[in-house]
């Protein structure tokens, strides 16, 4: 096969000029697209665990059953959901260049996340040592600890990332130019909160009926 003949621009000049390209050439940032893709794949992942939970509702062969041992984690839920508000405000503050306001809101977010983990830890302690429910007790224990635990792992990862940013902020290393990255982190955090709403409805509302 013959190689390409060099084609000169003079030749091209005899033809109609190609249509103009939109200037400036704008594409979505890779961070945004990447985070959307990550959230998509995580959603698929959680869907399977939620499906397993729903599938096994009422199928445990032995007690304890959810309605007898679970109570609504109201305070925990309020904390986690409000952390979504504080992280959104923090992100907006950084975008506007208000570093101090960002730092305060950011640390409040971290505190709320950590509170959630402590609350979950207390609930697990009660279930394991007072109720006697472990992952091997029955299908309820199996699905409960897996789903709530999987979510808690995500809260932990988010909290670690938030803590890292908090330390960098206190060290003065976070500036307005990081606003987009911080916003992406907040997207992840919103996602983790949204998952909690699903987990809450599945485990504590539907699952205890």
């Amino acid at each position, binding site marked *: 096969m013959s190689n390409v003949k060099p084609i000169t621009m003079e030749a091209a000049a005899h033809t109609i000029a190609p*249509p103009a*390209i939109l200037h400036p050439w704008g594409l979505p940032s*890779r961070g945004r697209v990447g985070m959307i*893709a990550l959230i*998509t794949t995580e959603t698929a992942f959680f869907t*399977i665990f939620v499906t397993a939970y729903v599938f096994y509702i009422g199928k*445990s*062969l032995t007690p304890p059953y959810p309605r007898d041992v679970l109570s609504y984690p109201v305070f925990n839920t309020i904390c986690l959901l409000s952390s979504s508000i504080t992280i959104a405000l923090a992100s907006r503050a950084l975008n506007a260049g208000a570093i101090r306001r960002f730092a305060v809101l950011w640390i409040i977010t971290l505190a709320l996340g950590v509170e959630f983990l402590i609350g979950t830890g207390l609930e697990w302690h009660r279930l394991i040592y007072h109720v006697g429910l472990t992952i091997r007790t029955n299908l309820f224990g199996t699905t409960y600890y897996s789903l709530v635990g999987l979510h808690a792992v995500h809260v932990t990862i988010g909290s670690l990332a938030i803590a890292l940013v908090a330390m960098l902020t206190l060290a003065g290393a976070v500036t307005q130019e990081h606003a987009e990255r911080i916003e992406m982190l907040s997207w992840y955090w919103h996602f983790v909160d949204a998952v909690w709403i699903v987990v809450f409805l599945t485990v504590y509302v539907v699952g205890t009926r």
Partner: protein
Amino acid sequence: MAGTIDDRFALDAGGSELASANALPIAGKLHEWITTVDHKKLGLMYIGWGLIFFLVAGLQAATIRLQLAVPNAGIVSPQVFNRLLTLHGTAMVFLVGMPILTGFFNYLVPLMIGARDLAFPRLNAFGFWLWFFGSLLLYFSYIGGGGMEGAGSAPSVGWFAYAPLTETPFSRGHSTDYWIISILLASVGSTATAVNLIATAFSMRCPGMALNKMPVLVWLAVVDAGLMLVALPPLSAAQIMLLLDRYMGAHFFDTQAGGSALLWQHFFWIFGHPEVYVLVIPAFAFASEIIPVFSRKVIFGYEVMVAASCAIGFLSLGVWAHHMFSVGMTPAGNAFFVTSSMLVGIPTGIKIFNWLGTMWGGRIRLRVPMLFAIAFLFQFLIAGLTGIILAVAPFDWQLTDTYFVVAHFHYVLIGGIVFMIFAAIYYWFPKATGRMLDERLGQLHFWLFLIGFHLTFDTLHFAGLQGMPRRIYTYQPGRGFELPNLIASIGVIFQALGMIAFVFDVIKSLTSGKPAGKDPWDAWTLEWSTSSPPPEYNFADLPTVHSRRPLWDLKHPEDPDWKYE
């Protein structure tokens, strides 16, 4: 600003990479490849390791066929046979298909959209090494770990590892754990690649390349990556549940404690069926680049091709239970999955018709890549039709879990995917190495492999219809299985000879192949505008495009594509 394509698109950064790598001592070269974040190097490493595992898992397949050549053969024990079939299946999907295909996307997507790398180069390297160590772990099971009670370590539960055979009472020792953890690692690596490919296609395109001007291959990479994003997590999630069962005493698939064996099947096939499309869409992608170039015609119905691919992606998420027609679903459930499975045939058919439309009226150059592509068209047509046959649920009650199914999916995986992988290797090898593969050895490879493939897999359909289930380590004489099995095993010899021709061709061409130049096939997409092999950053100046075939526009200024798009 007069200039040739060279000046406008490419920079020869002081000699090819190959030359600069040659200057380094071995350790330096090794260090360079291990620490690289370059999409081309990582792509080649994926493809190279994938091909090595292709040979290993191929040897395992040859051993399987040797054992089944005659009834009551005693070449391997049942335990060894079950390990062979498990490792062969698992490796061919996760250690061969996935890496070779993601390797090609890794290599090609940035080049074809005029970018200098993937969106997240370090994530790309991370994904590769996760996959790499996962893949080593799977085969490490053969030599590592004694396992409890002498139960052996290589997994022997089949590639879909149905519960509760994988639960501790039936699978002692660590063999199943090797299967779980190695595939879990490989899947996470693939997910990272998928995120990367999507971000690259949406955020890294060169000026002028609107979404509707991306080459079909890049579109299919996006569909493929999207499918991976939603299809791989169900497998990972189910594997984590199985690990919790095995290590922490959970009961997800523990039927003694009320757990459901069917839940595993559902989760597995929610992954498993889209996975088939994850593997075959790249084959479509190669065909959509190779068939036009060798027919000398623009792809027929670009928009329809892209739409059909997206439709295949969506529909493939709703057909999984056609792998489970025999588990005792309700008639309504069966009817649903019959209908959805047959519907996938429509966009698939549309793709075949559009490739036909591309060839129609062209001047078809029967070079090796096109030979493989034409064989692919015929074989994929048959694979699609046997797929329709299997979607007919009552017929499937007879055919499922028999050699008919084995023949069907090898038609997809070899007749479709492997043939297109060979086409892609012959087509892009010159770009990646700067040297052509030998045409005559390539033809020899093609014909030997073609004959071997048909001897083996055409006849296996009949073994299934005769009543031969899959995954049996031997069979008794007198049931009509002897003849198809013997012919199928003889076919292996031809396939093996074909592979020898291929390996010889690659080795020979790497050192003494004909220099390829930039654009040996007179092609039209951006990767052919830069040197072969491309310089580290692909393009000196980022190109600007006006159509789907930027090089066509340059070669045919009197009649450019953008007038018609």
